[in-house]
């Protein structure tokens, strides 16, 4: 009799889509080499959320398989194949850089594997090439730049000088800025990728004497530029504005005092006034003895979204329709550090963007303080090109 019950139960179990008993997440990120700082920050945020959730997401014991793409698209592709075929992960996350993202995305999509973006959300994947398997827990690639353009307009800057590296993301960034900016563009300068010395450009900026200078120079380039800009004395007359992801804590720790007074735009600030954010910032500082950057927030939020979605889908990650629905409604069911947000039909966030200033907090630490909201419920510009429902 007992055996019969077991058999019936087994048969019933086999008929419905099986719910996973464990969750295996493939975390492909840039964890070594010169650009590893951002990947490590995202990983630390993600692992913190997992730790606070007691090691299980959506009620399932969770294992994270880390893979290091070394900022090499080819390596990223091989590791993606390994994560999907050999490690048989249930879903993927982790990628920092858009060139890696664009290289590995076809493999992920063809395997019908869900991907939750903790950073890179390229316009190709959010626009025409949108996909039910893609979900962004960060921000569309152009959003910070667009917000900066709106901010420069609202501040009444009559003319702006733009500078970015000479590569696709550099051009996209200035396109985003110009979409939001209504003033006059004095000049649009593209510099060599990984340029060290900006003295030639700075001399020209001084000669042009614009109201504001918008610089998209990620990583070490931004550190070089800000140090040299301040040393030249121009920061007294020309207001520097940058996207928030090139001026957060990782850069503050490298530049320090010269950054004071700089404006940046972001979807998050460490002093955002909500319960989930206070919990996140306090836990991160306790764990890592440093203030989290927005990259850590994105990793943390990606984990929270996965947690909520897996729970809502009752663990059926393989059931495409159910899990997609669970993902799309996840932000409504979980409190994240950035506050309330929704999801557009292309899987990218509809959220607020803030302007922050680099200033000292009451302990004398240099932080990105929120000073206002630039865009409310901003929808990705490229969502209109996404044919998906």
């Amino acid at each position, binding site marked *: 009799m007992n055996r019969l019950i077991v058999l019936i139960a087994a048969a019933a179990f086999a008929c419905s889509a099986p719910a996973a008993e464990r969750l295996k997440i493939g975390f492909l990120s840039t964890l*070594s*080499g*010169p650009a*590893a*700082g951002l990947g*490590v*920050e995202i990983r630390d945020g993600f692992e913190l959320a997992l730790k606070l959730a007691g090691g299980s997401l959506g009620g399932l014991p969770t294992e994270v398989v880390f893979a290091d793409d070394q900022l090499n698209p080819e390596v990223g592709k091989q590791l993606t194949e390994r994560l999907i075929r050999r490690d048989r992960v249930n879903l993927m996350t982790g990628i920092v850089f858009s060139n890696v993202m664009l290289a590995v995305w076809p493999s992920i999509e063809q395997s019908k594997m869900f991907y939750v973006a903790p950073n890179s959300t390229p316009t190709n994947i959010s626009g025409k090439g949108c996909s039910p398997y893609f979900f962004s827990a960060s921000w569309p690639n152009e959003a910070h730049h667009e917000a900066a353009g709106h901010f420069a307009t609202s501040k009444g800057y009559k003319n702006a000088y733009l500078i970015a590296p*000479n590569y696709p993301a550099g051009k996209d960034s200035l396109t985003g800025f110009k979409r939001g900016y209504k003033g006059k563009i004095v000049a*649009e*300068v*593209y*510099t*060599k990728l*990984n340029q*060290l*010395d900006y*003295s*030639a*450009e700075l*001399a*020209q900026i*001084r*000669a042009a004497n614009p109201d504001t200078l918008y610089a998209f120079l990620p*990583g*070490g*380039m931004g*550190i*070089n530029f800000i*140090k*040299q800009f*301040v*040393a*030249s*004395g121009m920061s007294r007359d020309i207001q520097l504005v940058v996207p928030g992801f090139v001026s957060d804590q*990782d*850069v503050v*720790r*490298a*530049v*320090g*005092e*010269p950054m004071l007074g700089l404006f940046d735009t972001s979807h998050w600030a460490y002093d955002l006034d909500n319960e989930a954010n206070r919990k996140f910032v306090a836990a991160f500082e306790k764990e890592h003895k440093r203030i989290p950057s927005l990259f850590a927030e994105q990793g943390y939020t990606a984990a929270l979204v996965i947690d909520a979605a897996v729970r809502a889908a009752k663990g059926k990650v393989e059931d495409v329709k159910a899990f997609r629905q669970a993902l799309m409604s996840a932000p409504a069911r979980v409190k994240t550090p950035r506050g309330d947000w929704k999801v557009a039909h292309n899987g990218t966030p509809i959220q607020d963007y803030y302007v922050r200033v680099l200033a000292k907090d009451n302990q004398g630490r240099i932080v990105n303080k929120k000073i206002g909201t630039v865009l409310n419920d901003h929808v990705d510009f490229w969502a209109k090109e996404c044919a998906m429902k």
Partner: protein
Amino acid sequence: MPWILFLEQLLNGLQFGLMLFLLAAGLTLVFGIMDMINLAHGSLYMIGAYLMASFSQATGSFWAALPLALAATALVGAMLELTVLRRLYERDHLAQVLATFAIILIANEAVRLIWGSQPIMLNGPAALSGPVELPGGVHYASYRLMIIGVGAAVAVLLYFLVTRTRAGMLVRAGASNREMALAMGVDIKRLFTVVFAVGAALAALAGAMLGPILAVQVGMGENILILAFVVIVIGGIGSIRGAFVGALLVGLVDTMGRALLPMAFALVFRPQVASNLGPSVSSILIYVLMAAVLFLRPQGLFPARG
């Protein structure tokens, strides 16, 4: 182009060139005397900058930290020569490239283990944090002026060392004909270690000086190492004078190209074309220079070997 802008670019080119010289001087000596390609020279530059950052945080003074960082990096350089590089002199260039490339990877990961993945802070002395007004109304970063002073002083010192002292004579002898120097009883082993340590200290000086205006981060050495190699190829391998002239040429051509070319293109082409063409052409300008020099003088401008 107003002459003030031109003068400012001239100073910028000079400053960048002098820093390249500090790096290239060590590289060219090692390459010229020991016939050894040391790709890890950039790692010594990185280690110098990191040690400088740590020492200046510990001592609270830029100037107190500088000699400490130089001495510590020279020590690292000497240890590297004694333990690893010494075994590579007899090997061919391919083995040297492979081995020193491995050292780059090891150094990068070691720095990450010690100091973390994210760039660290290194700021110049507070007194030099702003600009100064030069005669003629040019506002120029005072820190960059100081770099020009230090670079020029080191260049003079090196020139004196190499041309007027006994140690310099041995170095020149080793560079122009190693076998003959050996046959004449020069203690080549000790000479190599000393030269390598001095090269490491020069790289550290470049790292320490550039740290306050560049990012101090893992991998910072590779970017600048390529330029240093261009410098020694232009100047002639093994020649300090060649490294000096080559470094100033590269510094000036790079800076002037970035400043002048976009303006020149704007006069000739439509703005759209000019803004695309300017950065692309100016970024290859120093390689065009290198190709031109190699075409006219395959041994470089001042070949050390007669």
